[in-house]
């Protein structure tokens, strides 16, 4: 079921299994039948650790969503709240417990805090007078959740906002803890590199925690050679750009949440003739997207322009495979053919699905609006007229295009120009406020605080230097048979991934100048390995780097790292970890404040 997690260089299934074991242990602590009351936000991430069947095996009979008022009726002995440690949730729990108490039911209550228990929350429960009602108060340390064979995410949505707007480093503490858990399972990571203030903070915490746990560390041969911590604010540009890989586009257009995407049903409905009555065509089609699906693993990271060719090639292979049946003469051959049928049928339905998805996306990518938008993005990235008010943005505002699209573009221009001249800045802001409403002044202030929008302080714009030194723009990006990471944005090579690439070879010393232009310190730390655990590297054996994006990472960046892993001469394999999988839209959204007027 989660086999795809163990295919990669690092067996991430170990992490999943450890998480499952801990969950089972907790469930067994509450003897008897149970109902789980879920903090809704947790159900997605939990689905990646344990399906309902596991819960059922441990006598979980009912599941509810946490909401205020009374708990739904359920004939169970235990009520377990699975919640994030948030005060507002504590108040709801207190309400639930009170209403149960009034009914004099003899149930046992338990709380499982995810990912960590909180004294503040327990204090709140105490103030509400319900703390004593809980038989068990426990924590379920779920920091890093395996999303794929090479991908871990904390799905901590507000991490970037908290770090850069609110100076709240809770997410970084969880990150450090998560990395400690990872090291407990996969061995101490001997080398740590980092760039950015948050990276520095996380590294400091890790080093301190290591001292704290000194002596109790496992004697495990290190699986990771290097950890690279990167602040999202070192590279604000990349997530703003429209991703052009297959997976990136699916995320940009339909949004991928916890490994699933919901798609408009029309393209999928007609294919199932017999069961048309069963499937309501209005219900959107839900697809799971991960490397367990062979075809998807093959095309997810391709530039969308290369997906069509890959799909038709696959179609030919599959129909050829089906044609084989005519060649099967002997009973043995027929038997062999039949044994392969399930696999082939799965491949065929997978092909049908992705052909439909590709068609859906193609309708959008071939539209003029998409093309115009992309042209402007590329102009900004190549530094064309970034210092003036852009007519396309102006027109989009006049046409009242979605605000987030406008913000993405304006922020991108600001980043590429290292800030606006005051006049240009004020113009954009006024346009946005007048068109979309004055309440967005808060959002604009937030974006300014996060550095996504800013007035030009110095006359010097660093971006062209950075672009040239790091070769962020490649004129002749090859979309079909890429030879450089720039294919993921059809020309633009993500800054974050260039930093990663340069670190592997020839090393950051070669780009000291550029690193100084980017915000935050860069650093290197070494962690002492216990004697006898030094790896003896085989000739030609690849090194493994864990790249941790603090504040989020986009699918296109992941694709670029996978591309680097697959390059024959790179000598490096990457495992990716992040606080949140994001795209420009979800990212900007997380930074917005939208008060709703009560005045009538």
């Amino acid at each position, binding site marked *: 079921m989660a086999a795809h997690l163990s295919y990669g260089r690092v067996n991430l299934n170990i992490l999943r299994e450890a998480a499952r074991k801990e969950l089972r242990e907790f469930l067994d602590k509450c003897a008897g039948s149970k109902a789980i009351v879920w903090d809704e936000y947790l159900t997605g991430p939990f689905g990646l650790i344990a399906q309902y069947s596991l819960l059922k095996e441990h006598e979980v009979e009912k599941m509810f969503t946490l909401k205020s008022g009374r708990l739904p009726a359920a004939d169970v002995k235990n009520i377990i709240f699975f919640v994030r*440690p948030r*005060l*507002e949730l504590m108040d709801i729990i207190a309400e639930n417990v009170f209403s149960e108490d009034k009914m004099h039911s003899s149930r046992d209550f338990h709380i499982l805090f995810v990912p*960590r228990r*909180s*004294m*503040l929350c327990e*204090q709140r429960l105490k103030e509400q007078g319900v703390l004593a009602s809980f038989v068990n108060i426990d924590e379920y340390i779920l920091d890093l959740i395996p999303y794929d064979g090479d991908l871990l995410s904390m799905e901590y949505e507000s991490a970037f906002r*908290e770090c850069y707007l*609110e*100076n*709240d*480093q*809770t997410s*970084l*503490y969880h990150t*450090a803890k998560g990395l400690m858990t990872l090291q407990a399972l996969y061995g101490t990571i001997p080398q740590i590199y980092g760039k950015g203030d948050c990276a520095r*903070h996380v590294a*400091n*915490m890790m080093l*301190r925690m290591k*001292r*704290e746990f*000194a*002596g*109790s560390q496992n004697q495990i041969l290190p699986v990771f050679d290097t950890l690279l911590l990167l602040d999202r604010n070192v590279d604000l540009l990349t997530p703003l750009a429209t991703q052009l890989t297959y997976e990136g586009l699916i995320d940009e257009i339909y949004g991928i949440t916890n490994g699933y995407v919901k798609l408009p049903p029309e393209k999928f409905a007609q294919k199932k003739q017999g069961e048309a009555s069963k499937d309501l065509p209005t219900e959107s089609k839900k697809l799971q997207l991960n490397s367990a699906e062979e075809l998807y693993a093959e095309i997810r990271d391709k530039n969308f322009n290369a997906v069509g060719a890959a799909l038709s090639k696959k179609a030919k292979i599959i129909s050829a495979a089906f044609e084989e049946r005519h060649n099967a003469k002997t009973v043995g051959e027929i038997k062999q053919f039949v044994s392969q049928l399930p696999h082939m049928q799965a491949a065929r339905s997978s092909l049908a699905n992705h052909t439909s998805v590709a068609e859906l996306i193609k309708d959008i990518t071939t539209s003029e609006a998409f093309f115009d938008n992309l042209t402007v993005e590329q102009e900004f990235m190549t530094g064309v007229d970034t210092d003036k008010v852009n007519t396309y943005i*102006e*027109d989009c*505002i*006049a*046409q*009242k295009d979605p605000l987030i699209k406008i913000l993405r573009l304006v922020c991108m221009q600001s980043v590429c120009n290292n800030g606006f001249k005051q006049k240009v*800045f*004020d*113009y954009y*802001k*006024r*346009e946005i*406020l*007048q*068109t*979309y*409403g*004055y*309440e967005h*002044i*808060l959002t604009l*202030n937030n974006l300014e605080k996060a550095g996504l929008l800013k007035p030009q302080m110095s006359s010097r714009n660093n971006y062209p230097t950075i672009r040239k030194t790091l070769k962020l723009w490649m004129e002749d990006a090859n979309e079909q048979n890429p030879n450089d990471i720039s294919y993921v944005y059809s020309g633009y090579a993500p800054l974050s991934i260039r930093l990663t690439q340069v670190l592997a070879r020839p090393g950051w010393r070669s780009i000291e100048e550029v690193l100084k232009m980017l915000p935050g310190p860069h650093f290197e730390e070494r962690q002492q390995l216990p004697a006898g655990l030094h790896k003896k590297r085989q000739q030609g054996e690849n090194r493994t780097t864990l790249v941790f994006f603090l504040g989020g990472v986009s699918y296109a960046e992941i694709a670029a790292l996978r591309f680097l892993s697959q390059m024959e001469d790179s000598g490096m394999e990457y495992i990716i970890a992040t606080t949140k999988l994001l795209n420009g839209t979800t990212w900007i959204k997380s930074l917005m*404040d939208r*008060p*709703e*007027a*009560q*005045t*009538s």
Partner: protein
Amino acid sequence: MAFITANWNPLGEAFYRKMELYEMCWSLGDGLRDCLVAAAPYGGPIALLREPHRRSPSSRPQLEIYSASGVAIASFPWKSGPVVQLGWTVSDELLFIQEDGSVLIYDVFGSFKRHFSMGQEVVQSQVLEAKVFHSPYGTGVAIVTGSSRFILATNIDDLKLRRLPEVPGLQGTPSCWVVLTQDRQTKVLLSNGPELYILDNTSCTAVCPPGLGPQAGSIVHMSVSFSYKYLALFTDTGHLWTGSSHLQDKLIEVDTKKTTPPKQMVWCRRPKSQQPSVVLMWDKLLMVAGVCQDNIQFPIEDLCVLVGELDGVRIISSTNQELLQEVPLVCQEIFKIASMAPGALLLEAHREYEKSSQKADEYLREIKEQSMLGEAVRQCVEAAGHEYDSNTQKSLLRAASFGKCFLTDFSPDPFVSTCRELRVLNGVRESSVGLPLTHTQFKQMTLQVLIDRLVYRQFYPLAIEICRYLKIPDYQGVSRVLKHWASCKVQQKDLTDEAIARAVCVKVGDSPGVSYSHIAAKAYECGRTELAIKLLDFEARSGEQVPLLLKMKRSQLALSKAVESGDTDLVYTVVTYLKNEMNRGDFFMTLRNQPVALSLYRQFCKLQEQETLKDLYNQDDDHQELANYHVTASYREKRLDSRLSLLQSAVDEYNKAKNEFSAKATEDEMRLLRFQRKLDDEKGAGLLGLSLQATMEALLALGLHKQAEQLYRDFKVPDKRYWWLKLKSLAEKEEWDELEKFSKSKKSPIGYLAFVDVCMKSNNKYEAKKYVSKVTPEQRVKAHLAVSDLEGAADAAIERKNESEMGAVLARCSASDHLLIDRLNRAAAAKK
């Protein structure tokens, strides 16, 4: 060596030996008479509570604690109430069970630790008899009260008192009783005259030992074995019955021909015993009674105390201490006279070898011929473990080592570990330490427990040396010892805080797993707050320091440690604590010095206490945030005037923050709101809350052109956006004449292609065509194409000699337009 069997006494198939463990170091004037004695198993310490010579109200009994070898550890007069029973816990604590049912706990050095009570009813009825027992659950206490009820506590560290059911017909104390642990239940077995009962949680059942006839008389003494498996009963007619403690099987019944009940009766057996036996002690006689009808009798001169062990019985007298045990089978095989066991031959071979005699070879050959050399080595190693005398150990181990040389494929592990363990055991058996542990006992109690016991006795250097010698991971070994040492060190009253802190730091360093906060907590418990703070400084885990610092009221320090840990929940905890402890001003000042804590508190306020948030910004003169705060607040207002006044505050703050743009924008917002309210009142336009753009849109839709125009001018709306707005609005309402007029009002800032597109969107080709000619040359092809005028598009493209434009036109041509296609192709070719 030849005398090894000299002290062996045969009993049936087995042999019993009595070995001297110690000449006792103590000098007891009155021997063990008139004493309450408690000696802990596994070679534990001995406690004596000696009644004063003359009973008078002023004289107090004297309590003395000795090591098993008789080294005095503590001595003090007993000033509390009358003691019924003494007993040791599994962690070397001494229990005093008093008449009133209170149980006092002292450590091995005689300092009071805590106390508990066996229940309120006992205060009245008094404790008549008490027993301390050990089970897998820990140390337990059982008592019989004056009202003949039994009360049990199975584990004194997790006190749960259980009152057992009444025993029918029992008055005062039973004639004898024992505590049994069976099937995970603790029970009491007691005899009352001729009756024998089993008492468990719920019932009292009369039982009858199989094969013990009524002629045997009533039971006056009973004893249960170390493992609770066997039971021995002694009747008033001198019969000894032994059997399983389940009372289902009988082992033997012997007539001891003694009519007085023994002083003490203890099981003497070992794991894998050949035949369990019982040791009975009378005033001048010690008797070992086994399975056969035979027995062994030892005369004794002095009053003794028997201590049952896992694999024997210790006999403590006022002058010496002996261990009586069944000789282990392997020792029998090796040392029995004329034994031909492989181990015996190997020992002989080695002896000859040391004498440089060729007989060594003969012996060796004999063993090898039977391919028994491996077995021989194993026997020697095992026997060495069982021997107490180090010379015997050495000769056995040397023989084993010698034999090993002739074996190729033999694991050295048992040999090595036995050597190491014996070295440790010999070390702790030293009289100065006084832990007379046998190898079997050591294996059973584990090394961990041995180290704990050394630590309880404060033999720190020895404990550390053992840990290092046996290469135990620091975390479980040295660190635990150091932790205990440090906790003890901080209680040393004659040293200054500095000296202690330094000493602790030097010794403990950063040994893994030693928690400085744990040590500091100890120091604080002893009232040494300053020392505690000093020690906390060494703690690497900042998180650990916080709770103690708060307890010691060092809240500022706690806050900075919490911040240091990075654990935001911990910071929140301290902040909430401070908030309740301090006045508001001090609280804010404290936060000000801790930016991380301050931002977290702000987060908290944002969700929970909006008003406080304002105060915080005010205090920091953070005008920007204050202004944002007012803006946010304004949206929560139901009434427009209060909303406006909040916005006015925001404007003021933005001005103070020198954020001119935001100030201006907020003023604009107020202006817009007033305008909207006015128009809503006048015309019922429903504008309030719309954006400026949406307002103008609505006005145009309502035909209120003048008002829209006014906003356009007042708010300096860029021409482009206004033109777009008006263009779309007019087209939507299909006011084509107005639109044409508008297009001519001045030169369009958005060009004329927009006009074409918008008209086409309303499907009005006729109107659209009007604007095609006005489009700039660059966009002309597009304009023609938009109105599907291919001819015009082609003309424009050819005129402009633009290849890609020609291509765009070509792409739109269908097969019927072949003339046009030719023309375009020719033009394109000409260009090349």
